[in-house]
Structure formats: C-alpha cells, structure tokens
C-alpha cells in the first residue's frame, strides 16, 4: 500500500490544497444556491415554464468550474515539478513516486468531491425545503458525471504536469489532452454530417461521433444547440456515455502515473520531457486552424484568401508555441519542417468523411433483414413529416408521449416494407425531396441498428403513419396518463389547489373513452385551461399537457372557480384601463388580449388575438383618440368592460390579458379569467376580426 499511497504525504498535499479547495467548494455551493433560487423564482413566476430542472440547468455551467478547479488543484499538487529546488526536494523524500502520484491525485480528488458534495447538498436541501418538483435519479447521474469530469480533468492535468516542466506548457498540454483528441473526432463527425450523405444520422454511426460521449463538449453543445443533431439536455443520464467517460478518465489517470514515474527530476524548467510530446503539442495547436481551413475549402470549393490566412495562422501558432515554450529560436527553426505532419492530418479530413459516409451507406437494410422499426419523433417539430396531422404534435419539450413512443419497436410487415423501400431509395441518391423521417432500423441477427433520415413519398408516408399511430403500443401510450413521480400544475395556485385539481382530473380522465381522451390531448403550454403534468421516469423528465373542457366537467368547473377567485378583479381593472386609454391620450404600456373557446376543436380555441393590431388601443394624440379612430374595436372594449365572470364549463370563455409596462424596469403581467360572452359581444369579436384580421392561424372565424 505504501508504494501506491502514502498517508502522511496525502495529508500534507491535502493541507497544501486547503485554500484552493475551500474557495472552490464555497463558490460551487453559493453560486449553485443563487442559480437554483433564480430557477425556482423564474418558474414560479410563470407556471407554464414550471418543470423539473434538466440535467443541464442543474450542472452545465458548474461542470466548467469543476474543470477549472480540477486543473488548478492538480497544478498546485504537482506544481513542484516545474522548479529544480522543489523538484529535488520532493524527489528526495522517502515516498515512492507512485505513492507521491497516487496520494497527490487522491488529495485533489477529495477536494473536488468536497466541492461537488457542497454543490449537491445545496441543491438537494433547497429543493427538499421548497418541495419543488425534482428528479433525484437524474441528479444522481449529474453528480456522477461531475465526478467523472473531475477524474478526467485530473488525469489530463496530471499527464500535462508529468510530461512538461513549465507552467505554460502544463496549461497548453492539459488543454491539448482534454480537448484535442475528442475535438478531432467531433470535427470528423461534423464533417460527415455536413459533407456525407444526407440520410446519415451521424451521432448514431459511432459513439465517438456522439457529443454525449464527449463530456467536455456535451453541456456546452447543448447550450449553443451545436451540431443540430438533437437536444442534449438530459444526456447526463446516458449510462454508456458515463461508462465510456469513466474508462477514458481512468486511462488518463493511469497514463499520468506512468508518465510521472518515468519523469526525471532534472526535467524541471524544461518545456517537455520528450521531443515527441513537444511535437504532439505543437501539432495540436496548429490543427484547429487547419481544420477550419479544410471546412472553408470544402464549403467554398476553392482555396480563398481566408484559407491562406488560416494556413498562416496555423503555422504562426505552431512556431510561436515552440518559441515561447523552449525560448529558443534555433529549436523553432528546427521544428518548422515538421509542420508538414500537421498538414498531412488536415488532408485526411478531406478524405475521411467521404470514406465513412460510403462505408455507412454500404450497410444493407431490406425486407429480409429488418426485424423492426422505431419512428423517432422530435419535440417542437409538429409538422415534421411534411403532411400535418399524422405525427403526434407535442408542442413542448420533454413531451411524455414523444418520449415513450420513441421506445416502441414496430414489427408490422407493411411498415417494414415501406422503410426497406425508402432505405434503398434514399441511400442511392445524393439529394432527395419528400417527407423526411428519422427511423431506427433493427436488423436481424447481429446486424445491430441503423438510424437514418429516410425520404418517403406522400403515399408511403401516410401509410406508414397510419400503421404507426394505429399500433397498439402507440395507442396505449397516448391514452394512458403518465406514470412515475409526477406533479399536476394547472396555474399559479397553491400546492393544495393544484393537487386537488390533479386528482379530480385523474379520476375524470381515467373514466373517459379512448376517443374522448384523444380530444383532451394538449397542444399549447402557454394558454389557460390546461392541466400540466410534469414528472420523471428514471432519469427522463417529462411533461404532458391536457385540455380542460366539458369532458372533464368537475375539474374544469373547479379550475374556473379557482382561476377567477385569483384574477377577476385584475382582469376587470385591465379592461377598464384599456377603455380609458382609448378615451384619453394617456398610456404607459402595452396590452394584448386573447379570448379562447374551450369547447372548440383542439387547435382552434383562440377566437380573438389582438397581438397584431394592439396599436388600436392607443390614442396617437389629443385630437386623435383611439375611441374615434377605431370605433369597432372601441365598441367591443366598452362592452367587455362590463363583462360578467362565469365558471360554467358549458358556456364560459377564457380571457388572457397581457400587460407590458415600461417603467424603470420592464415588467410583463399575464392574467387570465373565465368570462361569459353575450351574443352581441361574439358578434363584435367577429366584426373586429373582419376589420383587422387575426394573428393566429387557428383562430376560428365567426
């Protein structure tokens, strides 16, 4: 044990890292508290956005801090390697090199764990205290990723310290080890995606192209929606990616140990311990510029001036590193010819994407070897297939039905036949137009799976969607209320009121026929009159939205009652203010009004939206009052000023008034209530729409 770990030395290094460790842990905890409170406040303000926090919102920005903290602590633990006097001292003490390495790294790791524990404690305590929806399993995965990230950074920084002899090279080497290998793979993936065949879904070709597997990039790729492949928000829960990253991190830690053991004390102050390391770092520094150059050449189809600039930049960066790290112009001159290796690697990026693309396309998928298919639906893309109405239109991120149906494997022979035809058709053409659809194809035997974006004709598409939607598995998923841990949220009400509405809805929904259930399927998350069911199943967070109408009378009546008890007075005041603004030249903000008919068909509930003619509210001068310039609209508003509030599901309408106030700070309030509309008022609405038009496509014209 003494050969691998030295207790005394561990305690000593732990002590030496105390300041950095405590500062890091405090920062992680306090910054996290601030972020969580802001997250909760933001969600409480707008119940439509109320959801279980994703892995990304819980950890993304903090992962970056873990990387920084890991590098700082590791550099501190091994900082002595860079100075002759300190290097001699630590190499003279009676502790084996392996034990120095192991004990130092463990001290760093323990401090990082303290930081992560402080971070975790802050999160769990706050969520437990407030009782806000929270996915503990996902959080465990997030923490697991943070631990792996800590290991990965430690390993990379330790290798950097072991192979270099100055702080400058330490930093550069750590960055190169952390980013360059997988940067090269990711860029290759992006090149295949961009220049390979359009049917390929690149992250599924190899995990190495999947940003999920690149822990360093994942959270940030999600933040900037990079790659355009898919949403990475919850990819912290990808078990295979975690295993991959853990193994990768342990390999880095092990290699760090090997390099540390081989390192000589006299290397302190030298750029790198071996010429080959110096060459690798130099090359890695020049490569990103050259890859951008390849990208530009491939995009433009020519070698432009910009490419020349990039080539020069790559060469300058390459030489500059050598000059700064070795402080020797002679060495720089000697290194210059080796730049050709850098060029050679970048040339590979011209050829490899096409080779990979061809190899993928050569994989066979026909009627005889397809076992089953899964149609992959995406959130936010309701009309995804090109012909509306067939793919389930979720309209929300983390949609429950979408998530669940994406796990269904369809074995229908006709569906398989359609996919097999589309596979052959799509793969054999450069560019195709039609109905694009993402399909995961399960092949028989050891064929594994292929994920492709296939092009279908209208006929094929309609047939396939019929098969898909009519399948028992998909139907069951769509009809059944989500299970797992979940919370019902209907508005900015008390927890008890939301709970009461939830149980009423559950009871009424379960008693409905499948056809009735289908009419309740929600489309819009930002309207009143919906039940939001947010929950989690394993690491996946989900949201399901259901309409409230006469099919669920008890829930709807109670919801209306609660809604009006909160908002009646405010809505009345808003309506009076609008009329006042139209009558006087005196206004200090903007209004918009939406009125919904809950009994209308899904997608056509909005009967009035003033979003595109809200200027009609405002008088443009003392002699040009809105009541005179827009008499039709004024008549409607004057009538609505005296509106009656009604909670009867069979006759009530929902009204939402949005008010934007520009004072010292911008403020937006959105208030909804349930009202009664008379025949005359409905006629006035129709007149207004006829006069001004309506912004929403789904507005039902009366």
């Amino acid at each position, binding site marked *: 044990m003494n050969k691998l770990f030295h207790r005394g030395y561990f305690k000593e290094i732990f002590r030496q890292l105390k300041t950095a460790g405590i500062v890091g842990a405090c920062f992680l905890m306090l910054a996290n508290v601030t972020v969580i409170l802001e997250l909760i406040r933001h969600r409480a303000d707008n119940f439509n956005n109320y959801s279980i926090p994703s892995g990304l919102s819980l950890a993304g920005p903090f992962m970056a801090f873990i990387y920084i903290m890991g590098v700082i602590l590791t550099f501190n633990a091994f900082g002595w390697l860079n100075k002759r006097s300190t290097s*001699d*001292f630590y190499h*003279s003490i*009676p502790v084996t090199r392996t034990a120095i390495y192991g004990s130092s790294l463990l001290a760093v790791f323990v401090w990082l764990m303290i930081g992560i524990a402080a971070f975790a404690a802050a999160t769990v305590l706050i969520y437990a205290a407030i009782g806000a929806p929270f996915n503990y399993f996902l959080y465990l995965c997030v923490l697991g990723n943070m631990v792996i990230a800590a290991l990965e950074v430690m390993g990379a920084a330790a290798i950097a310290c072991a192979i270099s002899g100055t702080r400058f090279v330490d930093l550069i080497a750590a960055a190169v080890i952390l980013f360059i290998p997988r940067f090269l793979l990711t860029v290759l993936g992006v090149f295949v995606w961009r220049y390979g065949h359009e049917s390929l879904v690149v992250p599924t070709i190899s995990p190495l192209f999947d940003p999920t597997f690149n822990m360093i990039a994942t959270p940030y790729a999600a933040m900037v929606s990079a790659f355009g492949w898919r949403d990475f928000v919850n990819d912290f829960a990808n078990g295979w990616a975690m295993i991959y990253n853990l193994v990768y991190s342990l390999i880095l830690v092990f290699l760090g140990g090997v390099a540390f053991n081989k390192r000589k*004390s006299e290397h302190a102050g030298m750029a790198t311990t071996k010429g080959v390391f110096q060459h690798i770092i130099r090359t890695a520094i020049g490569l990103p510029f050259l890859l951008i150059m390849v990208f530009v050449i491939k995009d433009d189809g020519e070698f432009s001036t910009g490419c020349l600039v990039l080539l020069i930049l790559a060469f300058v960066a390459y030489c500059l590193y050598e000059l700064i790290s070795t402080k020797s112009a002679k060495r720089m001159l000697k290194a210059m010819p080796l730049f050709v290796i850098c060029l050679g690697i970048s040339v590979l990026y011209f050829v490899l994407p096409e080779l990979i693309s061809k190899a993928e396309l050569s994989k066979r998928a026909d009627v005889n070897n397809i076992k089953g298919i899964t149609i992959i639906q995406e959130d936010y893309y309701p009309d995804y297939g090109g012909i509306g109405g067939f793919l389930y239109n979720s309209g929300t991120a983390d949609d429950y039905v979408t998530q669940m149906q994406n796990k269904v494997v369809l074995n229908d022979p006709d569906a398989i036949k359609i996919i097999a035809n589309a596979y052959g058709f799509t793969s054999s053409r450069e560019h195709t137009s039609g109905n694009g659809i993402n399909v995961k194809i399960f092949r028989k035997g050891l064929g594994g799976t292929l994920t492709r974006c296939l092009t279908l004709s209208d006929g094929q598409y309609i047939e396939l969607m019929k098969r898909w939607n009519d399948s028992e598995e998909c139907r069951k998923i769509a009809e059944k209320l989500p299970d797992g841990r979940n919370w019902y949220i209907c508005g900015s009400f008390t927890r008890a009121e939301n709970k009461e509405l939830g149980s009423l809805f559950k009871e009424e929904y379960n008693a409905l026929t499948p056809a009735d259930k289908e009419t309740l399927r929600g489309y819009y998350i930002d309207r009143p009159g919906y039940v939001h069911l947010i929950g989690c199943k394993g690491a996946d967070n989900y949201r399901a939205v259901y309409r409230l109408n006469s099919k669920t009378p008890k829930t709807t009546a109670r919801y209306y009652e609660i809604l009006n008890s909160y908002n009646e007075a405010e809505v009345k005041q808003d309506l009076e203010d609008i009329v006042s603004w139209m009558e006087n030249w005196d206004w200090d903000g903007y209004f918009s009004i939406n009125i919904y008919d809950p009994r209308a068909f899904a997608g056509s509930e909005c009967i009035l939206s003033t979003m595109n003619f809200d200027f009609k509210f405002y008088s443009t001068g003392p002699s040009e009052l809105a009541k005179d310039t827009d008499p039709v609209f004024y008549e409607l508003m004057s009538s609505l000023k005296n509106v009656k509030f009604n909670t009867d599901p069979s006759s009530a309408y929902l009204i939402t008034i949005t008010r934007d106030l520009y004072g010292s700070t911008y403020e937006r309030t959105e208030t909804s209530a349930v009202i009664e509309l008379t025949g005359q008022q409905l006629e006035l609405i129709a007149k207004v729409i006829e006069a001004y038009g309506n912004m929403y496509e789904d507005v039902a014209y009366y």
Partner: protein
Amino acid sequence: MIIAKDLTKKFDRFTALNALSCSISEGCVYGMVGSNGAGKSTLLRLISGIYRADGGKVEIDGKDVYDNTEIKNRLVFVPDELYFLPRANLVRMAKLYSSVYERFSYDRFKDLVSTFKLDPNANIATFSKGMKRQAATILALSCKADYILFDETFDGLDPVMRNLVKNLLYDDVMERNATAVITSHSLRELEDTCDQLALLHKGGVIFESDVGNLKTSLFKVQIAFSGEYDRSKFAGIDMLSFTKHGSVSSIIVRGEREETEKKLRAMDPLLFEILPLSLEEVFVYEMDALGYEFSEVLKQEVE
C-alpha cells in the same frame, strides 16, 4: 556504507559524472570538493535518489537508493538551493518533514530551534540567507538520518554558525554513527571538518584520501648545507617537490615524518626545519604529482 561504482550521469550532451567510483564508509564525515560543474551536486542527488543514473550504480548498505523508501528514510539531503513551502514557518515545515520522514523527532527539532535561536513561528521567507540555511539544517538533523547529505553546507553561514553546524554534525557522527557527506567548492571549509576528502573534476574523482593521513604523510622541509649539493643528495627520500635558493632548499616530502627527520639530520645540515602544510598545499602537491594543475581543478578556490 555508500558505494558508487562507474556512476555516469548525462544531461543532454553534457556528461556530469563519468564512470565515477567512490566509497564512503559509515560514521565518517566525507567531504567532496571541486569547481563548479565538477559533479558534486549531481553525485549527491544520485546518492539521495533524486536522479537515476544513466550508467553504473549507487548503493547504500548494498541497496539501490532510487525510489527505495526504506533507504530514503535513513537519509536526508540538504541541497544548495533550499526549499521551503510558501509563507511557511519552521513549525509548518516540521509538519511537512514529520509527515514523510518516519524518524523525524520533534524533541530534537525543539532542541535545535533553541540552539540556533530561530523563531519557529516566523515566516521563513523573511529569514536571511544564513538563517534559511540554519532552518534547513535544523529540519535535516531532526530527521535523525543515518546519512546526512549537505550540498554547499556552509554557504551563507557566519563563522559562529559554521562551527555550530560542524559540532552538531560531529555529535551525530559520534553519537549515532551517522555518515555525513558534505560538498564545497572551498577546500578551506572542509579542511577541519572531514575525515575523508575527495576531489572531483570533470565528473570523476581524481583524488580521494583520509585527511589525517594526508596531513601527516606530506610535509615541507627547509634544509641547508655548507657545500654545494643538488637533488641527488636526497636519494631514498620520497620527494614531491624540490626547490633550491642558494644553499637553502625546500622539499615536499611524503612518508613517515620521524624516519625522514632521522635520515636528514644524519646528513648534518646547517639548517633543518619541518613545516606543516595546509590542506590546500597538500592538494597542490598531490595533484601536481598526479599531473593535474591545481588552479585548473579548483578554479574558484584560486580565484
């Protein structure tokens, strides 16, 4: 016992030690002298297991030192360039030493701190060069090591402190049979400290001897005779050097003092006097005899 055999160490193209061999027995104070770049510090770093030899081997009590915690626990090395933790005081440094050196004694540490009259709670960074050397000595001696390796031991110490350090070293050697290996580029520093001396030059030991023997076996004779005479008159006496000015000759003789005196007095000289040689003079003559120019080997010393 420390044994170095054919020890070679290279730094890129520079050979710091070239097949060096020497042996240092237990319970002695072994001095190494040589000009800058002679290989003294490199040899100490090889003995203390900091460096790994490119060729040959160095063993302590028959065991390889490199990465050997058992042996390293029995030796302590005080380098020429001292290391202390940033903003640390002596107490903090003692904590560091005690966490890695099994034999570190806080009692000894306290004794030494009061002997040197250093403030254990003061920031070492504020210490003078000499005080820092004292602090390093305190820490090293508190490790109660069997082998104490000092590089440029007395650098920055005033004469009083030099004596104190020397006495403390003697105590360790006498009481615990410890072995001290100390280096200096100044021969005078080591003259009255060491039992054995080695002269290093260009990565090799060119001369190694017991100091007591050196001083007694080499002496200077001033002698004069009434008639004409030359070098041949002294046949049978081992002379390293012979110079004659008029009737008076100066001879550097190697051999038994009493026997030589008897022989020379028997020649009935007009003047006869035996003068002691400084260690430096002994080195000059011994090296001259070996064919080395002393001023070349110990440039610093002469300059």
